[in-house]
């Protein structure tokens, strides 16, 4: 762990990413403390104001403070990111471990199902799932989780197959350790590095997908603050009130960028230990 921080310190780009990620996390966690107003609070005499001292990012068509809504939007994005990636990652871990360890027919069945899911474009598949389940925050998270599952399954399965070749797995079998224990005690800890990297990269993807779904009206529903919802609401005014679209878009770009930088540097840091 110590060497981890040391290496991150030397990787300037990764450090910037890490700081950016922390910033977004702090904004999301401490939204009520940081935001000057409530997200649905309307200042009816201050609609469509450009950024000024009172409203640093300006206001939208209902006079709501854009900065406040972006801060609260960070919370939604993080929530969706974490839970959706959680669903995808845990599902992927379970299926990947089973497919990789037992191989044969089980592997074939799991991987062919994942291939089918993988064949659809992300957004299209998420749209279909949300359309079936009905648009809501929970369903968005489930949809994104399912969309992300094949990537995790493939990564886990691949790592399991390579780790399984190590003699310490045969050794554990020879000792008489049960397959279940071998999977959890001997394989899982040794495939964590690529898995963690994929989780960070998956977070940015999930946040982006949530924004896209919300923009299309199938994710978070207005008046709840979400960056995608804000983009959708402001698209009609963007010509004469560009701040209404620039700041939410900027928030998305910033978050995705930081998560990707952090994920890339994590991969570099963790990879040599993979062996």
């Amino acid at each position, binding site marked *: 762990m110590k060497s981890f921080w040391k290496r991150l310190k030397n990787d300037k780009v990764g450090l910037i990413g890490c700081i950016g990620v922390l910033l977004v996390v702090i904004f999301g966690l401490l939204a009520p403390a940081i935001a000057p107003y409530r997200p649905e609070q309307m200042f009816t005499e201050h609609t469509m104001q450009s950024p000024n001292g009172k409203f640093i990012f300006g206001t939208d068509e209902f006079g709501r403070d854009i900065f406040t809504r972006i801060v609260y939007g960070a919370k939604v994005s993080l929530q969706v990111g974490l839970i959706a990636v959680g669903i995808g990652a845990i599902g992927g871990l379970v299926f990947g471990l089973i497919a990789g360890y037992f191989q044969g027919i089980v592997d074939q069945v799991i991987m062919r199902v994942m291939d089918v899911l993988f064949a659809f474009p992300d957004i299209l598949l998420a749209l279909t799932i949300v359309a079936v389940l009905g648009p809501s925050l929970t369903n968005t998270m489930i949809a994104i989780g399912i969309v992300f599952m094949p990537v995790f399954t493939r990564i886990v399965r691949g790592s399991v197959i390579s780790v399984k070749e190590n*003699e*310490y797995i*045969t*050794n554990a079998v*020879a*000792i*008489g350790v049960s397959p279940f224990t071998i999977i959890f005690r001997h394989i899982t800890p*040794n495939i964590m590095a690529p898995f963690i990297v994929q989780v960070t990269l998956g977070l940015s993807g999930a946040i982006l997908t949530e924004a896209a779904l919300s923009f299309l009206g199938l994710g978070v529903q207005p008046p709840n603050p979400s960056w995608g919802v804000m983009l959708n609401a402001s698209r009609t005014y963007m010509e004469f009130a560009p701040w209404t679209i620039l700041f939410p878009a900027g928030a998305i770009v910033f978050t995705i960028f930081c998560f990707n930088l952090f994920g890339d540097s994590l991969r570099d840091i963790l990879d040599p230990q993979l062996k």
Partner: protein
Amino acid sequence: MENRAILEVKGLKKYYPQKSGVFRRTTNYVKAVDGVSFSIHPKETFSLVGESGCGKSTTGKTILRLQEPTAGQVLFKGNDLLDYSKRDFRRLRKDLQMIFQDPYSSLNPRMSVRELLREPILTHRLAGRKETEQLVRDIAEKVGLSKEQLDRHPHEFSGGQRQRISIARALILKPELVILDEAVSALDVSIQAQILNLLMDLQEELDLTYLFISHDLNVVKHVSDRVGVMYLGQMMEMTDTEELYDNPLHPYTQSLLSAIPSTDPFKKKERIILKGDVPDPANPPSGCPFRLRCPKAHERCVIENPAFQEVKEDHFVACHLYDRVEEAGEVPDLVGSLR
């Protein structure tokens, strides 16, 4: 003699199917182990030697069912190991342990030595918490690991020390039979001697039976009571160590032994240099597997695979040169002329 054996292997076969074509049909088999039989007596060291790819490791792994054999019998104290279900066999593994070749990949890098040594006991629920700690400390002391080293991880140790950890991990279960699969081949010569002596001391102390798999003829001579020589998945010759090294009968064994470097520079030795390579086990020659490289091959070797037969007391050979024995009932002078 026979009923005394702790382990009896009869006609063990391991074929790997080779698949080809669109429908992945099995078109051919690689006969990694093709009808190997031998028996091991309690507290002795039986060695399997042969060049790489001759099936000696596969033999070891199929005995422990780390790979399922294609056919044959493996009798451990009279019970056929292949009759057990996988689940039941897992319980039996306590008595049959294995030590692997590569000390660098045979220990989980994420576990401390203490965790590694504790695992076998926990797996078989052999002792309580306190007792387990005591067992771990005892076995660590036996193999020469200090108390302080117990909380370190495998990457902090040298190859020899890691092999000590592997040995401790296998022996903590108090097994009866230990299969040593090239257990010292990856180590430096000086460390090899240490580990071999440790293994021999532990054998004495814990009444262990060893199946020693190796390609190193000097090491085999040093440790074993009896030796089996394998070639291309088949047993070529099997007898006492002394008898084998003094009086090898099979042309393959003779050429192997002639390749051992001598420490005496004045000793004149005739080296038998074999021509060609080991044949592809997927496409073995007809008749005797060794005939393509055998300096004494004749017509019969092309047609018929020689039977593995006892030509002298406790000396088994699979070679047509000794076929007359059966008919004449005595060892031919041919044996002498071969040396």
